[in-house]
């Protein structure tokens, strides 16, 4: 439509930008505001500073891994290993410092290195042999979950006293350390996604892997780095969780992988790859955390909480898909 669209294209383009990328985020902000108003007036103590800081800490458990998983999903892959990976990392840091005599710093370093390594392994299986990432990380999910329980006999491993762990598990200037880590990493990931060749390659690989390959992008390297990153982020989350609980546990963070994926998808990242934003994921993390917190404060039965959360998550994604479909300007001719 060389002639006819030239005049019409700018309007449609702007509309697509508004609807496709921003509507979702504006919608989430509105939804979160509504939640705040409703919960603020119905749930006792919701607006307390203590509760708000607690939510920030809870958000960190989902958020840190969610930054990495956002990139994984944008690249058209998936990582379902987060929950067991976090649990195993908490076990590693606890056993490393309490049982293996590595000291706290040694145990933390070991955990970070191993986390990166098992992530890279999953990425390598994906990149080198074409093992679907769902399967590669399902394997990881099972192996790490099993190892964590096996090493500890399913009992919590208490961490030794340590100033460093107190800081990691506590607060800095009143703000939970985990939340600070989350926000710093958020900034890093926003930068990486938008301002580095690697970040753009992630979008390109997810949008059209063949084109990315023919443009000289090293797909294997991108994929390995993606999963190494989520491994590292899981390890960080595990360390922070252990520090906060004072113990490592093979059964910690159960089901976290689904909260993470839900946050990413609610945030508007397409499971099919190629499209997504970290800001959306941040809002998705807040959304999920607020709902979880509100349901607890409202005294909803814990089994029923899962039911309500499930409905809300699917509903949110449904709205997203609907908004995305209307907003995407595509022409096939």
């Amino acid at each position, binding site marked *: 439509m060389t002639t006819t669209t030239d005049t019409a294209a700018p309007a449609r383009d702007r509309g697509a930008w508004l609807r496709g990328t921003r509507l979702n985020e504006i919608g989430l902000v509105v939804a979160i505001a509504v939640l705040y108003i409703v919960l603020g007036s119905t749930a006792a103590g919701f607006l307390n500073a203590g509760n708000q800081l607690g939510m920030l800490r809870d958000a960190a458990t989902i958020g840190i891994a969610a930054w990495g998983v956002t990139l994984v999903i944008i690249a058209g892959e998936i990582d379902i290993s987060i929950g067991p990976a976090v649990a195993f990392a908490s076990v590693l840091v606890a056993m490393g410092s309490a049982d293996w005599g590595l000291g706290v710093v040694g145990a933390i370093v070991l955990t970070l290195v191993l986390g990166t390594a098992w992530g890279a392994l999953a990425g390598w299986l994906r990149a080198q042999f074409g093992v679907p990432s769902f399967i590669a990380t399902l394997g990881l999910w099972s192996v790490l979950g099993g190892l964590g329980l096996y090493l500890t006999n399913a009992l919590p491993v208490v961490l030794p006293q340590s100033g460093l762990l107190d800081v990691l598990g506590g607060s800095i200037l009143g703000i939970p350390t985990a939340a600070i880590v989350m926000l710093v990493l958020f900034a890093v990931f926003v930068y990486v996604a938008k301002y*580095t060749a690697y970040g753009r390659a992630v979008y390109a690989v997810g949008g*059209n892997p063949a*084109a990315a390959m023919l443009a000289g992008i090293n797909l294997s390297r991108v994929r390995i780095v993606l999963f190494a990153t989520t491994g590292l982020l899981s390890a960080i989350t595990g360390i922070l969780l252990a520090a906060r609980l004072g113990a490592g546990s093979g059964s910690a963070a159960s089901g976290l992988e689904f909260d993470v994926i839900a946050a990413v998808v609610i945030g508007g990242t397409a499971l099919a790859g190629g499209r997504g934003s970290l800001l959306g994921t941040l809002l998705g993390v807040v959304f999920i955390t607020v709902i979880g917190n509100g349901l607890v404060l409202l005294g909803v039965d814990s089994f029923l909480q899962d039911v309500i959360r499930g409905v809300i998550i699917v509903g949110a994604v449904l709205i997203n898909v609907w908004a995305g479909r209307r907003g995407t300007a595509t022409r096939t001719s």
Partner: protein
Amino acid sequence: MQTQTDTVVADVRGLTKHYAGVKALTDADVTIRGGEVRALLGRNGAGKSTLIRLLAGVETADRGTVQIAGQPLDGGVRRAAELGVETVHQELSLVPQMTVAENMFLGAWPMTGGRVDFAAMRRGAAEVLSELDLAIDPDALVEDLPIAEQQLVEICRAVRRAPRLLILDEPTSALAAGEVAVVLATVRRVAETGVAVIYVSHRLDEIRQVATSATVMRDGRVIETVDLEDVSTRRVVELMLGDAVQEQDRPATRSVDRDATPRLSVRNLAAGRKVEDVSFDVYPGEVVGLAGLMGSGRSETLRAIAGFDPIDSGEVWVDGTPITSVTPRGMKSLGIGMTPEDRKSSAIVPLLGVDENLALADYRQVSDGPTIRWERLRAAAARLIDRLSIATARSTTPIVNLSGGNQQKAVIGRWLHAGSRVLLLDEPTRGVDVQAKEEIYRLIRELADDGAAVVFVSGELEELPLVCDRVVVVRHGRVTGEMVGEQITTDAVVAAAMTTD
């Protein structure tokens, strides 16, 4: 070809469809009779696709009526199918892992006693195939068939449903010249059975072989329906373009210094099953065409040179230096860029902006250390958009919203951005309209004038005389001839590529 009957199959009156701000179709009147093959001509965006979508019931008109065999088309896709409208789209929609028979009965499997009756399915498929005089095994897996036969299976699937109106949207665009004949013959045979056929194509020569009349569209309107027997190609092109036709004459022969060191030399290249023994040189400022039919190994040759397929034997030299290890990264850094033949599936990243699609192969130029400087990226993109006259609302528009020709220019621009001095262009004009083709020819010549060495591959052999300084003929993975300057004529190129020995 004279099978036209008096039965009006499709009667379109005052059909109008406007999208937000785009007058896709305005007051279209078309009448098509049984047994007639009607060509539908027009540039991309002339309204052909919209007309087809309305006929197939995919979209609903704002105004106007469509009658199929006297009955109003007043519903969606189901109603259209009920009335006997079948469409074969440009992209193949077969399930590759299923047999020919199963694909022909996809979604409408014959059942006996609650089970799929494979025997009946095979019989039905064989019947259609023999009716159209095609030697395709109904039990063959579709993925094992050449593209041309896959296209025929698509047509058979539509024919099996006994359509009144069969719409073919560029059925030959993926085929080489030699493969087109069998598809055209099949289309004629379908028409002989009394079916009305709408045939969309950019290839004028093949339209003349299959259709008696052509409806020309432009800017969303039906301009004229012409009898193809007494209209010149020039007149048809005039109707399509609206303005005076530009001279499609050969560009002036340029002088290329062939005593200099070739920018790229290929010696006895063998790679995979399709490339057996290919040698040629490309000099700075030269456009060399690789002339070959589909399957001759022309695309595979480019892929091997660019490092994407392993080389079995032979040598690649760049600027007089033999390259010991031909890898994608290495060849890219030596200034070799390749644009793939399938633009949609392997060249563009649809949702990224034009700017990023341009920068994709080299972010370093627009970065400080690891940090991408977006203002520099945008500026670089703007320069290329300007230089290549890419028509886009803005540089950040997702590339999928651009027309095919503009997408292709951006894909070529990607390698200019990366500083490539050797451009391997695989089918750069596939599926783009006449005007965009001419712009791409001009662009390629200009790049060569600026010193680039270009290897140009096209399935439309008649393009080669319009762009190339030299043509290397490839047949079955071997170089079988070479033409320079005045020797390059359409006849000569086609004959050389098609001769079998």
